[in-house]
């Protein structure tokens, strides 16, 4: 149990565009311990979803290493990779588009068994579907409903049941609650926490919602324009954000508490383009603490305090 469940080394994913290479994920490395949750945070276009998909080899990484439980995923043959998928799953953001509209609840949940030819007996499979529905809190009477007849919360429960069917150890959660209303969001978050406790799951939790990720994760990694800029244990990150972008991001969360007003750091401008970025600090054009060095060289990730990594020239320990 000492080796981490997942180790990602120098992961890169570039996309070809008419204007040049788009550096969606650029040299991202991290490890993920068994049973823990890593929150991957950033704004749209920062490459967090692509990272999640690249780790599962749903989109082929450009380069890097993904070591899952001692297995080098990128070296597996297609059929070995398909078998490996029983161990690692994904829950999608949009419960409206991640379910085939032509599949009933039962068909969607039993699909994993069909694909891997696991439970061939019909009655057995039906029993297993019902058990999974109980696990995720879906009423059994919905078994023959179609997704469009259900609301977002219930659809997300189907997505979770489908992901759990094969008994995975690792689940990438790609903004699983962003499309849901607050009251439903809390129901789903509680369910996911409970499942983690009961089944010993390891999560990579991708989100843009910082208050959710604080509630949910043990560690948080912040991404900006394809780069990981800071990674730290959750409370350390909230107590001592070191990267200027993390600081701005944290200060930008509107807090639903009238007695707690933080001083806001407003960023200038908007994201620059991730196409063929210059080899300098990618945040330098919006950074309030920028120095000359930032416009000359690209900072590297370094550990400033135990477990707290940051890629900024100006950051030091606390």
């Amino acid at each position, binding site marked *: 149990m000492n080796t981490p469940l997942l180790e990602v080394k120098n992961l890169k994913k570039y996309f070809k565009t008419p204007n040049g290479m788009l550096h969606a994920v650029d040299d991202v490395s991290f490890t993920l311990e068994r049973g823990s949750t890593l929150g991957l945070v950033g704004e749209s276009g920062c490459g967090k979803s692509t990272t999640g998909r690249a780790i599962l080899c749903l989109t082929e990484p450009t380069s890097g290493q993904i070591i899952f439980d001692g297995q080098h995923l990128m070296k597996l043959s297609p059929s070995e990779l398909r078998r490996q998928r029983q161990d690692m799953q994904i829950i999608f953001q949009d419960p409206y588009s991640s379910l085939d509209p032509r599949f009933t609840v039962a068909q969607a949940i039993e699909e994993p068994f069909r694909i891997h030819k696991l439970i061939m007996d019909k009655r057995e499979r039906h029993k297993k579907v019902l058990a999974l529905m109980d696990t995720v809190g879906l009423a059994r009477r919905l078994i023959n409903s179609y997704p469009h007849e259900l609301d977002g919360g219930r659809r997300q429960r189907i997505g979770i049941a489908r992901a759990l069917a094969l008994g995975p150890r690792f689940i990438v959660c790609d903004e699983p609650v962003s499309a849901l209303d607050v009251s*439903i969001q*809390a129901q789903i978050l509680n369910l996911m926490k409970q499942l983690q406790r009961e089944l010993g799951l390891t999560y990579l939790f991708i989100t843009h919602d910082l208050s959710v990720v604080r509630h949910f994760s043990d560690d948080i990694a912040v991404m900006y324009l394809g780069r990981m800029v800071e990674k730290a244990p959750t409370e350390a990150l909230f107590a001592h954000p070191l990267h200027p972008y993390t600081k701005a991001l944290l200060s930008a969360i509107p807090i*639903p*508490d009238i007695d*707690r007003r933080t001083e806001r750091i*407003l960023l200038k401008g908007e994201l620059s383009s991730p196409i063929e970025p210059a080899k300098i600090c990618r945040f330098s054009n919006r950074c309030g603490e920028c120095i000359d060095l930032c416009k000359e060289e690209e900072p590297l990730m370094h550990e400033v305090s135990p477990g707290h990594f940051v890629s900024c020239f100006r950051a030091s320990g606390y």
Partner: protein
Amino acid sequence: MNQNDAVTAPSPMDSLELDIRDLRVEYRTMEGTVYALNGIDLQIPKGRTLGLVGETGAGKSTTGLAIMNLIPSPPGVIVSGSIFLGGESILKKSEKEMNLIRGNKVSMIFQDPMTSLNPVVPVVDQIMEVIEHHEKISPRESLPKALEMLEMVGIPRNRAHEYPHQFSGGMKQRVIIAIALACSPYLLIADEPTTALDVTIQAQVLDMMRELRKKYQMSMLMITHDLGIVVEICDLVAVIYDGRVVEHGTLRDIFINTRHPYTEGLFNSLPDMENPKAELKPIPGLMPDPTRIPTGCPFHPRCGYAMDICAKTRPSRYYASTEHYVECHLYDEKTVVSGGRIKQ
């Protein structure tokens, strides 16, 4: 103070920018009638900002569209009620009269900036259009004003003649704000203006809106599902459930002296800032099907405090102060006088 006060306005009419009374809106479709607004009351005093908070399907957007008199019809039908804007009854206006009010006395910002601008018209022309229409001036006279508006929302003049697809989401929303404010409206309706934007961009836009509201001294209706944004920008809050205001009050009333179980549930669904790892206490169940609204209090099937009466009669309005009222059977007069917050 008791329920009878609901009939008369808590504050005098002439100081109200917006006054909605008992508004009922239905969407009559083939599949059945959707009861979107079921007797909503909303008042915004001049110069103040009211946050309209609720979840999907609660009737927030319908309220905004009703004020603009832009509810798509069919299938939308305004069944009863009244809307007064600056003392004038909107629902009695002809389409022609409404066209002098929209964009001029009241403006609206919509949720999705990506689709709210005409893709084949340069952005500056889309601002000029509203100025020309209401100030009856020529394109040559309106151009400088439109450029000025763009600059005010932080878009450089040299990008004025570009098309919407050349702008990012945040900048498009700025353009839409410029359109909304071009004729200095008395009331601005903002329907989830930052939901589609990133957090840091949201912070920029909210900051700008706060500045502009001060500059124009206008009233504002902020429609949102995010209690954090309410704190940022609102003076008053109305919590809406199932097309009706269930709790209304100042920021402090709602955030500190929470009374309605639904409002409480909303807060409990959010991670606690003091103790972020504490387990969430979500509201059980789901929003009611808007074609089949529960009898009595529409929240009773999900309410942890529900009593027999809740399933039978709709609760009346109980006032804790002139501005803080709640529609819930838990608050008969005694409870209100003792002023206790709901304890579990």
